């Protein structure tokens, strides 16, 4: 099924964000997306979000196995972003970036699919081939870690 250029661009942006949520590194996310995209084109597979996400995930697992890089904790070069109209208790980009860094790839992935892509736990479970309970637990733990990190950050600022 052929899609328009705008639709494909949108699809690729979604794919990039998903790859970024797993790798937490812009360069690796770009490479992962490109590998998955080429594989889809070669297989003449459907160009949709579900298929792209699955291809990205499979490629990530293959790369991790090959390179023995299962715990991906690479630091991403942080781009200074503007903090405008943020209230004091709003999570700053920097804090959020750091809090996402401490999450495990599986936790970040589950949180991304739930919070950003709006998938239900059931859908994420089908995509990742894990039990629904595990997904709920991963999301809960990820939110808890982000919250704790943020609280610690506020305490540091107050002191």
């Amino acid at each position, binding site marked *: 099924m052929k899609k328009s250029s705008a639709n*494909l661009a949108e699809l*690729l*942006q979604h794919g990039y964000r998903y790859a970024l949520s797993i790798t937490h590194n812009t360069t690796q996310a*770009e490479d992962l997306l490109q590998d998955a995209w080429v594989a889809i084109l070669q297989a003449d597979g459907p160009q949709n979000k579900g298929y792209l996400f699955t291809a990205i995930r499979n490629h990530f697992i293959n790369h991790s196995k090959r390179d023995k890089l299962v715990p991906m904790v690479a630091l991403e070069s942080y781009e200074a972003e503007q903090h405008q109209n943020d209230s004091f208790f709003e999570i700053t980009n920097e804090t959020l970036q750091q809090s*996402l860094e401490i999450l495990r790839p599986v936790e970040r992935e589950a*949180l991304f699919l739930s*919070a*950003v892509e709006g998938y239900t736990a059931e859908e994420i479970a089908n995509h990742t081939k894990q039990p629904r309970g595990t997904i709920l637990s991963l999301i809960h733990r990820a*939110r808890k870690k982000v919250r704790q990190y943020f609280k610690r950050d506020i305490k540091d600022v107050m002191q």
Partner: protein
Amino acid sequence: MNDKHIDEQIKKHYQKKNLTPKKLEQLLLLAASDSAKNNTPETKTKKQLFLNHSFKQQFAIAASVCLLILLTLQALP
């Protein structure tokens, strides 16, 4: 700070992340051209190539090979 608030912040965070225009263009070009498909390596084995032929052709190939082996054996001292 509740779960909804965290989710909103994470959503905002990721929505700011975009592919560089250069990379996006590169991937779109890849989709537009058939270069990715053309780069697919030929993976057919000899067995697959043989099976792609019709029964008559398969029989002819097999007979030729057998004849060749017999002639070779006969020629041996």
